[in-house]
């Protein structure tokens, strides 16, 4: 059942892709999208590797964890979107002012 590994690798790829976009793009909506994609990648790793049970049913514990994770993700996304709208409402731009990365 090595396609479990293939999906896990896709998951790792999604995580890194999201991480890249999170850092590389300034627009907040894009950063939020990037976080969601990172999350999906992590979930994919969790669940894909749970399928290494041979012919038996996959390990249900990571499944439960991912359901928990999806709920966290939607809550965080909602809060992040609200904050983004507030920031853009005040500045007229959906980017963070003055990058403090120095």
């Amino acid at each position, binding site marked *: 059942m090595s396609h479990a590994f293939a999906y896990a690798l896709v998951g790792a790829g999604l995580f890194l892709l999201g991480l890249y976009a999170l850092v590389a793009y300034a627009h907040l909506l894009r950063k939020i999208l990037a*976080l969601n994609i*990172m999350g999906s990648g992590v979930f994919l790793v969790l669940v894909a590797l749970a399928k290494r049970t041979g012919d038996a049913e996959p390990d249900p514990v990571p499944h439960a964890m991912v359901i928990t994770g999806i709920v966290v993700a939607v809550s965080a996304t909602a809060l992040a979107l609200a*904050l983004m709208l507030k920031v853009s409402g005040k500045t007229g731009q959906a980017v*963070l002012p003055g990058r403090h990365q120095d």
Partner: protein
Amino acid sequence: MEAILANADWGVIVILLPLTGGIVCFLWPAVSKTAGLITVAAVVLAVAGLGRQIMEHGAYRHTVGGWGAPLGIDLFADGLSLFMLIMTALVGLGISCYAKSYFNPRDAVWFWPVWLFLLAALNALFLAADIFNLYVTLELTGLAAVTLTALTGRIDALSSAMRYLLAMLAGSLAYLLGVALLYHDSGSVDIATLAQRIEPNATVWAALGLMSAGLALKTALFPLSFWLPPAHASAPAPVSALLSALVVKASFYILLRLWLELFADFAEGVSTLLGLLGAAAILWGSLQALRQTRIKLLVAYSTVAQIGYLFLVYPLASASSGLAAGIAAYLAFSHALAKSAMFLAAGNLMRFGGHDRIADLDRAVQRLPLTVSAFALAGVSIMGLPPSGGFTGKWLLLDAAMSQGRWDLAAVMIIGGLLAAGYIFKVLGYAFMQAKEPHDARAVPAGMEWAALLLAVGSILLGLMASEIFALIHPDLVANAGGAVERVWTA
């Protein structure tokens, strides 16, 4: 009555109490202030009860749902967790007393429920023995902290809360990916079980890297500290105090715990790296603090520097990890007391003068003596001058560094202390002076002044109680996975 108190399951109660309190505050906003204060006070008592049980019977373990790890989730508290719980309860109580007078009714309605949920999350985090459960508590902590940061609704607060949230989520996801790898490598998310099964291989190394990076981001270890100064500087004063004193300690605690129980044996290279970053944080944070012209930013950068001290224990831990954990916890506690006092004092100064420009403090020494005393006493601890918690912590760290011949680390600590003296006295010096254009001042409620002062006095007294505290975090009480199960004790 005595029997009930002795047998009550205080570990669970310290989680359920603030959860209930938060919901009560949410359902009846009118009583949120009273309910909030009562809850926090009750949590202090419950932590005391838990402390008594741990002192008498050894480490605490509670199998939630009765399943037991690795299938179920365990709650676990040893001396180290207890110490963090005590820190949270006491500092939380001080900040709550301050917040009582600080917030206007509009903000108070939101502050209290969110703060109580944050308290519940922190308590749950310090009691967790399960790396996935830690993820959930981390997320709770992060969301609550971000909400509190944005409470004023001003533009600087909003954008720093936004940045804070993005950093928190990225950190959590990195941590979660690490959890995923560890689980699939060892088949458990229970720390004690993992400790028995874990063997250094590429998967564990990747998990170690991801979890450390995620937690370092959440703890604002340099250079991942970009989000901290704006967030801590723009939040309302009691929130800044909570963030600096408690929230950054939460992720640090997880890292420390994972290190102690899982990674210390094989990851010396990484601990060197963590120590290096800690040293860089001390220097960079202190220099930045010295450059600031506003008190709150100064104090926030000081937090970046002080976090650096916490990470110096990693390279020193090889000789005795129990002692190193004790030093780290002690440093964390003294920083929590001192930094909360400082932020609260800064809040008083802002309330008083309407601004926090250092050069315009305008005779605050005479006009706000308690607040300036609080700032000064807390400053003593931050500078690491005796007698204070900061001094004792720095002494222990220096002693460890010198005994192991780590002159580089010792030098960084010394320089950090000098720079800290520089930025603390920068504020104090101006507090004695008269501003060029004296401006009118607003009254500061006495409760706010006293809350800051008491926390600051606490940071001094902590320095005189080091032996008692080290008895509490004694290696016997700090679990290392193998022996943990034997010392299981449930009510």
